[in-house]
């Protein structure tokens, strides 16, 4: 039988004095129970007793608590920040997961059982054996129209989204379209308005009727929520002002040539722009000529 003691022994790390996967077992149980609730009520925010982590609040502590409470023997972990495995924050989180669990980590999307991400859903399609954990800065989609958490909870309970719709309408009047960039609000399972975390609109359709489980962790705001597999997730839009994803005017990735992935533009020394894949694992796979399964 697997015991915590056995796991600590097996991780073969010098971090004596630290529990397996850092968080104490009672806290992990509490987080997992909150996650079960979240899966049972898709899109609904579940409060949990978010703990102080050895990284700063707002830098992924919610996602990290979700990830660490899920991990066990056999898991393979991938950590990305803005789609990039090598980013400093992703590297730091991955290092912590490795130190505290002794588990294998990977850059390959298809090899991972748990993927922790900030602001992106990978451009390679996720399958039914995978969990994507998204870091969430602000779990409350109604924040822009109602700053009180207590009031917003009441609006969710009564499914009163009138002010949200009004804000979208005002946006159309002022700017000619719903001008939300990342973190576009969605209706989950025809019941709750949810923020998908600040992923680009490009990634929003990947939430709808997906094979994988999406878990969202907001450490500072002490909330988790979920989109279970095969759930309807519909962006809020008007019939005459439909939802659009980002477009790149026909530009291709300067590294791999892809035109079907999310691209980031960066200024160059000569005052121009260079486009590159945000998902570096996907980009690498395309460059290596390997097959990729896209959404």
């Amino acid at each position, binding site marked *: 039988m697997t015991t915590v003691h056995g796991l600590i022994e097996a991780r073969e790390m010098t971090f004596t004095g630290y529990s397996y996967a850092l968080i104490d077992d009672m806290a992990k149980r509490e987080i997992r129970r909150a996650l079960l609730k979240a899966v049972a009520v898709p899109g609904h925010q579940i409060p949990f007793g978010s703990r102080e*982590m*050895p*990284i*700063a609040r707002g*830098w992924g502590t919610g996602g990290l608590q979700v990830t660490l409470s899920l991990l066990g023997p056999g898991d393979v972990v991938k950590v990305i920040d*803005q789609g*990039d495995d090598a980013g*400093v*924050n992703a*590297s*730091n989180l991955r*290092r*912590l997961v490795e130190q505290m669990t002794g588990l294998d980590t990977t850059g390959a999307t298809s090899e991972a059982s748990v993927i922790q991400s900030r602001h992106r859903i990978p451009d390679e399609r996720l399958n039914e054996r995978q969990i994507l954990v998204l870091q969430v*800065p*602000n779990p409350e989609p109604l*924040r*822009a129209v109602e*700053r009180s958490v207590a009031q917003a909870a009441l609006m969710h309970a009564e499914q009163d989204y009138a002010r949200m719709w009004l804000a979208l309408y005002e946006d159309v009047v*002022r*700017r*000619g379209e719903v*001008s939300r*960039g990342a973190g576009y609000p969605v209706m989950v399972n025809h019941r709750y308005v949810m923020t998908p975390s600040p992923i680009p609109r490009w990634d929003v359709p990947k939430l709808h009727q997906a094979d994988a489980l999406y878990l969202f962790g907001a450490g500072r705001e002490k909330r988790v929520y979920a989109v279970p597999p095969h759930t309807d997730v519909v962006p809020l839009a008007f019939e005459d002002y439909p939802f659009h994803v980002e477009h790149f005017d026909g530009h291709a990735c300067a590294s791999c040539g892809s035109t079907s992935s999310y691209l*980031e*533009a*960066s*200024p*160059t*020394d000569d*005052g121009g722009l*260079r486009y*590159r894949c945000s998902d570096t694992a996907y980009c690498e796979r395309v460059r290596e000529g390997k097959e990729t399964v896209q959404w």
Partner: protein
Amino acid sequence: MYTAVRGGAVAIQHAEDLIEQEVHGAHDPIATRQVQAQLPLLLDQVMGEGSLYDPALGAVAVRQAAGDPMEAGFLLRAYRTTLPRLGYSVAASSRSMRVVRRISSAFRDIPGGQLLGLTRDYGQRLVDLRLLEDADAPGSHGAAQDDVLANGSSPADDSGADESPQFPLVIDFLRDEGMLAARPEQPSEDEPFDVTREPVRYPAPRSARLQILARGETGAMLGMSYAGMRGYGAGGHGTIAELRQGALPIEITHPVTGRPARIGWLPVTECHFVAGGEATLRSPRADYSMGYGVVTGRNERKAISMAQLDMGLKRGAGSGNLLDDQEFVLSHIEPVDAMGFVEHLKLPHYVTFQSSMQRSARLRALTNAARNQAHEAAGAHSH
């Protein structure tokens, strides 16, 4: 004993003796140079809020205040009063900064490149238990930081400084693209408003706003900025186009030749915070605007908070939100005013309290009398 009338002088003397014992009587006293070398971030915060960039004096203030940053900043502010204002420097541009750290949250690649430099951002906040045992052992005396940031000491070889690479600003790209309003041709004021010499009236000119923010208390600014990001102000989330640390060359107009002459280098942290949403269908213009933060020394938390608050003050004027209101923000981040007034509650208020107690007693007498009267009237009725 807390006695205001008799024995006051003696009590004060005793308190001072206790301070003397705390500061000078320590078993293993730290030298001011150790404060400079080993508590540089505390020192930078104190000098910034104290509005006086002098590492030696700042270190003394830290020691004298037993590590209380506000008390130490207060000491510097009070010392500042003894100094004359000799003149203003020429406006310094961060294009000529000697950069030791430079990041952008807006673009992965930026001309000149990102430079992570010295930061604790990506470290793990695990208490390093080795320090328990090593506390007395001599550390490794590695040169951790470019001397330019080591408490503001001037670069040893001043001539070489001009050859260090200069980095273009990320906001220049946004301006070229027309996303951010162009730089004004002329600065809006010839000389900065000096809040230490003239009382501020609201609405305050921009130079006064920036000066007050730059002298503000780090914690108070952080709290307000955080609230602003959580929906209570117009500053919002925004994006850091660029955050840089380094040393700015400080020049004055030479009194004889009239040409700019460099008199030294000032370590600073600077933040360009941008957010879109300014333009509408009916008023097309640059969609992004910028909040600006700059503080002396290394204090990114404050520089970012400053830029975020500046954004709110610019963008939310008239919104009705307290955090977009100049008077509310600028008055209450002022450390000396805030700590002084809140802590004056410790002063004796015997006279005022007596006066208000009499009012309460009088009210109680009046309500009792009214109640008795009503009671008697009711009693008379029932008979």
